[in-house]
């Protein structure tokens, strides 16, 4: 019985215009999206490579860093064709200001985003990455495939015809679910695989990259789960209504709520309920602290020089004392702010999880290394790099204040200039980050399907 109904559903789908529409749209839009995204990635990769090459050419020695400043570049993510995420807005370079060789305090690397938009309309409308295609296009198709499963057949009168046979109801709904889901995701999978094959080597790097295959598979699983969630939702609503039209109306409203409203509302709501001061204010406050302390430091040194009690070592120890004080205060400020921001962020994240769409979009960004984890990793690695630079290069140059002016004592430098490397995000962190969303998506699927199952057992087929 299961097989009979399963085959019938497959046949019915294949002969319908909606399957053809979905197939054509998938075969056009998915490769197009992958093509455009990989081309953009190649451009970014090129810029990055050129910048890094030029930088390394002229920054070979530590003394180069003193006069020309130091930079840390973040490489663009090759998997950004899956999810562009925050790639364009997160900082892609951290650099010193002015001439750090003339600085008398801790040298800081400031984050910046050198990617100003070439075409502003790109940002109006967003990228055509896989996340968009799945979260918008495929969920729409999922609705189109599932709305008529039960209520449509009832309207047609064929449900009655089926039920007057010795067919258990659970087999009917299982067969419908399986068959319609398979016909829905097959064009999607074909289009994705086709794109991977076509664009391999043309900006799409899957071979030779350590975890790329794994991450790609994970993305596809997430996509299938989201499509499944909407599909089963459609099935559920179909068992709750008597007319196909009502099913579609309810599903469209649900779609607007789940895609358009819940995720967006969550971050704004979190901000309202638990406000955190902006980065700009924090930076200004930090600058103020730094300035005040530096002034104090210089005043003490000047006093020492005036009273004739100065020596290089005494100046060095005063400077070290203030450096520690500054670092301590700034760290404290940073930590407090980070803590508050984390609370706000997780509040928003958990609220957003009420919609399966958020459980898909956010993890996909993390998987593609264009999400929050990547941002944090870059920040951490830059902080580490900054420490190395200060220890090995900038603090070597010592300035002594004398009555005749400022005398600089050249430091001793050995070896080449330190170079920045971004460490890959450890797998455990990634898994820990996306596991809750994975589980939630599975739960949504099970919840909706079991709802449909239970409802269908009592569905009035007349």
């Amino acid at each position: 019985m299961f097989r009979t109904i399963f085959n019938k559903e497959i046949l019915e789908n294949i002969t319908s215009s909606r399957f053809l529409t979905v197939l054509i749209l998938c075969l056009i839009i998915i490769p197009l999206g992958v093509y455009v995204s990989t081309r953009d990635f190649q451009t970014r990769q090129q810029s990055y490579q050129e910048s890094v090459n030029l930088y390394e050419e002229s920054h070979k020695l530590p003394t180069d860093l003193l006069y020309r400043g130091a930079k840390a570049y973040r490489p663009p993510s090759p998997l950004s064709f899956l999810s562009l995420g925050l790639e364009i807005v997160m900082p892609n370079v951290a650099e010193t200001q002015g001439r750090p060789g003339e600085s008398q305090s801790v040298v800081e690397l400031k984050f910046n985003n050198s990617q100003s938009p070439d075409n502003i309309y790109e940002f109006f409308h967003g990228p055509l990455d896989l996340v968009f295609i799945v979260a918008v296009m495929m969920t729409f198709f999922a609705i189109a495939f599932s709305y008529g499963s039960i209520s449509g057949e009832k309207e047609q009168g064929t449900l009655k015809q089926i039920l007057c046979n010795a067919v258990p109801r659970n087999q009917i709904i299982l067969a419908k679910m399986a068959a319609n889901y398979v016909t829905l995701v097959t064009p999607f999978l074909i289009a994705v695989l086709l794109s991977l094959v076509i664009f391999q080597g043309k900006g799409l790097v899957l071979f030779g990259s350590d975890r790329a295959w794994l991450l790609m598979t994970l993305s596809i699983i997430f996509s299938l789960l989201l499509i499944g969630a909407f599909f089963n939702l459609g099935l559920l609503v179909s068992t709750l209504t008597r007319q196909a039209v009502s099913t579609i109306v309810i599903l469209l409203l649900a779609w607007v709520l789940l895609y358009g409203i819940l995720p967006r509302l969550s971050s704004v709501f979190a901000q309202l309920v638990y406000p955190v001061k902006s980065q700009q204010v924090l930076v200004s406050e930090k600058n103020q602290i730094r300035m005040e302390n530096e002034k104090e430091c210089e005043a003490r040194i000047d006093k020492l020089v005036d009273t004739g009690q100065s020596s290089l070592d005494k100046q060095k120890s005063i400077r070290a004392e203030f450096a520690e004080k500054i670092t301590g205060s700034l760290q404290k400020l940073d930590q407090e702010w980070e803590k508050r921001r984390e609370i706000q962020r997780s509040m928003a994240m958990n609220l957003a999880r009420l919609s399966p769409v958020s459980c898909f979009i956010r993890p996909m960004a993390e998987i593609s290394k264009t999400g929050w984890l990547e941002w944090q990793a870059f920040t951490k690695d830059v902080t580490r790099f900054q420490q190395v630079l200060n220890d090995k290069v900038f603090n070597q140059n010592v300035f002594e204040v004398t009555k005749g002016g400022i005398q600089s004592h050249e430091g001793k430098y050995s070896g080449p200039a330190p170079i920045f490397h971004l460490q890959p995000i450890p797998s455990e962190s990634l898994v820990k980050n996306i596991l809750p969303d994975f589980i939630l998506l599975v739960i949504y699927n099970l919840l909706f399907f079991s709802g449909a199952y239970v409802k269908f057992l009592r569905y009035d087929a007349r």
Partner: protein
Amino acid sequence: MDPKAILKAIDLSKRYEDEVLALDHLNLEVQSSEVYCLLGANGAGKTTTINLFLNFIPPTTGTCYINGIDVTKDPLEAKKYVSFVSENVMLYGNFTARQNLDFFAKLGGKLNLTKEDYYRVMRRVSLQDKAFEQRVKTFSKGMRQKLGISIAIIKDAPVILLDEPTSGLDPKAAEEFLEILAELKSEGKAIFMSTHDIFRAKEIGDRVGIMKEGRLVMERTREELLDEDLVKVYINYMRSVPLTAQKELVEP
């Protein structure tokens, strides 16, 4: 009650959630090789009766049996012995006639039929050859009814339930349809059909029942009807004071 009756309703009642009493203690039976026609106005309870037999809704009281099996207790088993032709046979518009037939045949337990078998059945109901591989959405109402009955034939179940099968058919198509029913009856099928069509009911029915406001108010055999004018009887029953205002007992 005749123990040989293959279709039985004993004290069957149905009250819907909105308190409407759609069926009031229905007792009837149909034997093999018998055609039973149920007449009645719209809302009299004819379709409710069929829905109860098919277990689409549970009865409030009473039981119905198909081939001796209690429909409520073992619906899946009972459904092996019944075929159904609905009032408006819609089927799957994008499938051909044969594809529809194939699907429902398999559901009905007939798994190994060939194309020829399907063609034979469709020819039997006088469906034109060129329609066999045509999509059902291009069919006229008459063609769809024929396809509906062919689905019932191919299942080869001993009971056939039909809900107003000739409504909307032209006289010729209706005649053809009834001829098929007569054939099926002679093959031993028990045929139960609800209808408005008094003339044809009289023609084909071995027994005729009249329903009014959920009750079976009259039952006559073919022989009894030869002396009576069914039309007059029917209209008289329809015109009389509503049952709710009077108590009238009916002998089965």
